[in-house]
């Protein structure tokens, strides 16, 4: 520290202005408005930018996806039902074959003797395809009937032959039970006259080809003849229990989920701005009356009333989407009205508002020029958290069967369908859940980023 005596003489020159060229211009940053500053902070936030990017992708999939992926989400193809995700967009070609021949089997006369050898010469008859696999074999002496087993893995011993398909009293068998494009291992066990299965078995590996029966192809609208081939839709995310393409349904359901999730908050926050703004600006009796009413609406058990609105409008109603939208708006506006009112009450006393009033600014001018722009940050932040919570609520309602109903669908409704077959076909639940979770997650992270960028008070607290 310098002592006072060490201060040199103050020359008159020290008080003259510094020449312009010597001014510390390089140290001055260009002045930034609140919004420019917020934008800069937001763009620097990597997490938030990543979230924004994934939201853009999600919106792109749901809104533009159907233009590219032109599969009807409601088309039911029972013979394509419950296919696991294939992760490939390539259509599969399938041969068109004649309708399976379901005529009676040739009568089978058991040969006399004691059963001590196995079935001989198992062969497939015709094309082994996803339509039908036709097996035929030769009976050993003493065989009265045959047990057919099917496995997807090569059997190791007598106990791993797979699913028992049928007990046949003949020398051929036609299998059409949910055939998929994999190799099957058919094992045939002969049964003697006492009905006892022999210990030995014969296995045949069958390579399945994709095919369509003529009548199925005709029913799906293909104009083909036997021997032609058709191109089937690929199902990158698999199909549901009615054979509807899951990717197309995800897109359609996503449109509904995002529609409710984005439109409802936009409307109810707008309502909240108007009601809260009026209430805060007017003050006095009107304010306390409006606030009493919002208190009551807030006290209503939210989910109970969502469900009741839904029921009141008819549970099987056709425009279930708009009912959810409507009830969400009706029950959610008080929160934002309270928030905006608090902001307006606080801002009303700020010196710059009083100055504007002193200078003769009209109430409308003050509201639009000063009050609104200064609450916009808070509004944006609350909007970015309202969207995921609305998507969440919709999913929740649809999941318990109180939301979107057929023929419409949403991600929540798809989860509801998926949970029924969850144990055997987990992808039916996993696919829509992943979409909901990513979207809500991204909106939440985006909201955090926006809050960090816009709300200086919240930032200092973290």
């Amino acid at each position, binding site marked *: 520290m310098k002592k006072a005596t060490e201060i040199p003489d103050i020359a008159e020159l020290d008080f003259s202005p510094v020449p312009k060229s010597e001014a510390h211009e390089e140290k001055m940053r260009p002045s930034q408005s609140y919004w420019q500053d917020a934008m800069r902070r937001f763009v620097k936030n990597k997490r938030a930018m990543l979230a924004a990017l994934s939201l853009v992708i999600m919106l792109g999939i749901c809104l533009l996806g159907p233009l590219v992926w032109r599969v009807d989400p409601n088309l039911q193809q029972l013979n394509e039902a419950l296919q696991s995700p294939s992760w490939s967009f390539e259509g599969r070609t399938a041969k068109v074959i004649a309708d399976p021949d379901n005529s009676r089997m040739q009568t089978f006369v058991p040969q006399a003797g004691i059963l001590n050898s196995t079935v001989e010469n198992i062969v497939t008859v015709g094309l082994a395809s996803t339509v039908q696999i036709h097996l035929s074999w030769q009976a050993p002496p003493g065989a009265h009937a045959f047990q057919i087993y099917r496995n997807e893995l090569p059997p190791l011993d007598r106990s791993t032959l797979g699913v028992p398909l049928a007990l046949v009293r003949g020398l051929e068998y036609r299998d059409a039970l949910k055939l998929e494009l994999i190799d099957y291992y058919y094992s045939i066990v002969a049964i003697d006259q006492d009905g006892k299965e022999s210990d030995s078995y014969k296995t045949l590996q069958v390579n399945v080809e994709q095919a369509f029966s003529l009548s199925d192809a005709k029913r799906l609208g293909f104009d083909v003849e036997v021997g032609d081939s058709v191109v089937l839709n690929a199902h990158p995310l698999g199909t549901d229990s009615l054979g509807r393409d899951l990717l197309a349904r995800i897109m359609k359901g996503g449109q509904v989920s995002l529609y409710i999730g984005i439109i409802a908050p936009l409307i109810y926050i707008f309502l909240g701005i108007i009601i809260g703004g009026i209430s805060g600006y007017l003050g006095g009796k009107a304010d306390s009356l409006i606030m009493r009413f919002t208190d009551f609406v807030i006290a209503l058990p939210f989910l109970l009333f969502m469900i009741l609105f839904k029921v009141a409008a008819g549970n099987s109603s056709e425009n279930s989407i708009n009912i959810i939208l409507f009830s969400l708006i009706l029950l959610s506006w008080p929160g934002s009205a309270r928030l905006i009112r608090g902001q307006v009450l606080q801002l009303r006393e700020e010196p710059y508002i009083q100055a504007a009033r002193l200078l003769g600014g009209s109430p409308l001018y003050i509201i639009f020029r000063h009050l609104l722009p200064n609450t916009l940050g808070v509004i944006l932040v609350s909007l970015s958290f309202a969207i995921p919570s609305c998507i969440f609520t919709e999913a929740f309602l649809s999941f318990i069967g109180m939301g979107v109903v057929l023929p419409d669908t949403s991600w929540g409704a798809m*989860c509801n369908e998926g949970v029924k077959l969850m144990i055997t076909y987990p992808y039916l639940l996993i696919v829509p859940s992943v979409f909901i979770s990513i979207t809500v997650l991204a909106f939440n992270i985006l909201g955090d980023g926006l809050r960090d960028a816009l709300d200086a008070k919240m930032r200092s607290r973290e």
Partner: protein
Amino acid sequence: MKKYLLKRLWHGIITILFISTATFFAMHMVPGDPLSSEKAITPETRKALEAEYGIDKPLFIQYGIFLKKTFIHGDLGFSYTNRNTKVNEIIANHFPVSAKLGLLAIFFATSGAIMWGAIAAKYRNKLPDYTSMVLVILFISVPSFVFASGAQLLIVKLNAATGWNLPYRGTDSFVSQIVPAMILGLGTMAFLTRIMRSSLLEVIHSDYIRTARAKGLSPKQIFFSHELRNAVLPVITIIGPAIAAITTGSFVIETIFTIPGLGKFFVQAVQQNDYTVIMGTTVFYGSFLVLTVLAVDIVYGFIDPRIQVEK
């Protein structure tokens, strides 16, 4: 204090009345009535049944009867779908199941959040903090039904793979309630963790902590008797709303895990238009929530004298 209590109680009663009135009329706007699901019903039987349940009278008289029976006699009437079962009985039998689940969930949520939030704050801007914040946002964002069905799937697969017999549904044992309760409390826990973390960070930098350190207390003593005690307060305030969130959350959890709680019953009743059960559970849940929030507010006044309840 007394005046404040009376005022809050009065507001609570009005809210409950408002809830039951709105529910009553909303429900009667639904096309069809509970008897329309009855198969092969003759006009005479229908008349007799309508008279028995009193739904042949004009709506406003029905409303009057409902108010009198519910709020004066405490009688919620008979269920339509389960003949001869009183709604009071249904609530008495099934609410304890939900309450047990809910209490367990709140226990998991608060104890987990306090621990977790404290760890995150202690290791601020280090790996435990970052991982816990990622997990928190994940638990807030993933719907509970996803976790619930995921957990169920996992238990089933685990049972199949190891030959164990872990329960994945029902309420046969205490063990079978642990998984549903944890999942029910997960979202709340994540939310509370955030609050705990930021409140602890605020407390750490306050003057009395510096004083405590200056007078030579060990870090352990400072943490347990000063920091933790003060940081827990904001967490306790949120418990009121948290109870509401957990109550509604239990609808889904009870349906997925087939737990015979009141939430599952309510969802069923709404699907079957069972007037008396809907009304009964709504009035019950409404009153329950209003009273819990009131109770938490009052208790909070005792815990933290800085909060003026009167205000």
